[in-house]
C-alpha cells in the first residue's frame, strides 16, 4: 500500500512539473523566435543606414520629387554573408529591416538633394530677375 502511495506521489509530482515546465518552455521558445526576428530586424536597420547617401543626394538633386519616390521604392542590396548561419526568423527580420531602413534613408537623402536643387533654382531665378531688372533700369 505504502509503495503504491509513493508511486502515486511520484507520478503526481512529475505531472505537476510538466504542467509548469511545458508552458515555460513554450514561452521561452517563442521568446527565442521573437528575439531572433527582432535581432535580425535591428541588424538589418543598422546595416541599411550605411547605404550610399551621396548617390541618393545626387538622385534627389537631379530628379527632384521623382528622385525621392525612386529612393523609397528602390530597395538596397543585402550583404549576403550577413545571412550565413542565421535562423529563418533572423533572415526574415533582417531583410525587412534592411530594406525598409535603406529605403527610408534613400528617400531622406533624395529629399535633401531635391531641397538643395530647389534652393539652387531659387537663387538662379533671383539672379536672373536681378540681372533683367538691372538691364531695364539702363
Amino acid at each position, binding site marked *: 500500500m505504502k509503495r503504491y502511495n509513493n508511486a502515486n506521489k511520484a507520478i503526481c509530482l512529475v505531472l505537476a512539473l510538466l504542467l509548469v515546465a511545458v508552458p515555460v518552455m513554450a514561452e521561452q521558445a517563442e521568446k527565442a523566435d521573437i528575439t531572433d526576428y527582432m535581432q535580425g530586424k535591428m541588424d538589418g536597420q543598422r546595416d541599411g543606414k550605411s547605404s550610399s547617401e551621396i548617390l541618393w543626394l545626387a538622385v534627389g538633386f537631379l530628379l527632384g520629387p521623382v528622385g525621392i519616390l525612386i529612393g523609397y521604392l528602390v530597395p538596397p542590396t543585402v*550583404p*549576403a554573408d550577413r545571412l*550565413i*548561419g542565421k535562423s*529563418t526568423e533572423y*533572415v*526574415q527580420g533582417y*531583410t525587412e529591416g534592411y530594406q525598409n531602413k535603406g529605403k527610408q534613408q534613400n528617400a531622406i537623402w533624395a529629399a535633401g538633394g531635391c531641397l538643395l536643387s530647389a534652393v539652387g533654382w531659387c537663387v538662379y531665378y533671383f539672379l536672373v530677375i536681378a540681372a533683367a531688372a538691372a538691364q531695364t533700369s539702363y
Partner: protein
Amino acid sequence: MASIVLCLVLSQILIAEIKDNLIVNFSRLLTNKKPGVDSVKGTIFYQPPNDILIYVTEPVNQHLKFNDKTLVIYYPDEKKAFRIQARVPFVLPFFQAFISLTNKNLGLAEMGYTLSQSEKRGDTLITRWVPPARIKKAVGPIIIGMVNDQVGFMEMQNSKGRTIGRVSYSDYSKIGNIMLPMRVSAVRYLGKDTTYETVYYSNPRLNVKLPDEVVNFQIPKGTEIKEVSW
C-alpha cells in the same frame, strides 16, 4: 559606403582564376559590436565561374545557393526557403578573399589598377596599387604584402588614405598546382563599427566531381518559399 566599395572591389577580383571545381570545409568566426562571437561551420562547393553552394551545419542546418544575382536560402529541417533576386550580383567577401590568391597580384592589374610603389621591408615585399581613374574618387590604393612569393596581407584604403579593411593570409597549403591559405583573417572598419572575421579552411579538394544534389540544387517540393526582390 566603405563596405559597399570593399565588396564591389572584392567582387571584381578574379574569381575565375580557379577554373576547377572546389570543395572545402570552413569554420568562420565573426566578432562585431554585439557581445560574443558568431561561429558558423559548413562546406563550400564552388563551380566556376559563378556558382557557389554552401551547406551550413552549425549553428543551423542551412543551404545557401549563390548564382550571380540570385540567392536561395533553404532550411531543410523547417522546409522553408527564401529566394532573393537582386539587381547587382551577390558577393561573398570571405570566400572570394580565399580563392582570389591564385592570382599573385589579386587580379588588380586586370581591374585597371597600376603599380605605383614597391619596396622590400625585411622579408616582406610591399606593393602599392592605385585605382583606375573611373573609381579613384570612391576607392583608394590597395597595399599588398608578400612573403616568400605568397600574399601575407592585403590592405584597402579609401580615397583619403584611411584604411577601411585589411585581410591577412596564413597557413598556406598546396592544393593541386596552387597554394591556398587555410586561414584568412579580416578586419573591416565600417563607420562606427568594426568587424573581425577569421575563417579556417580544411580538407580542400580541387578538380573533383561535385555531388549531383549540389550541381542540380533545387528547392524540394512542398517547401514554403518567400520570394524577395531587390
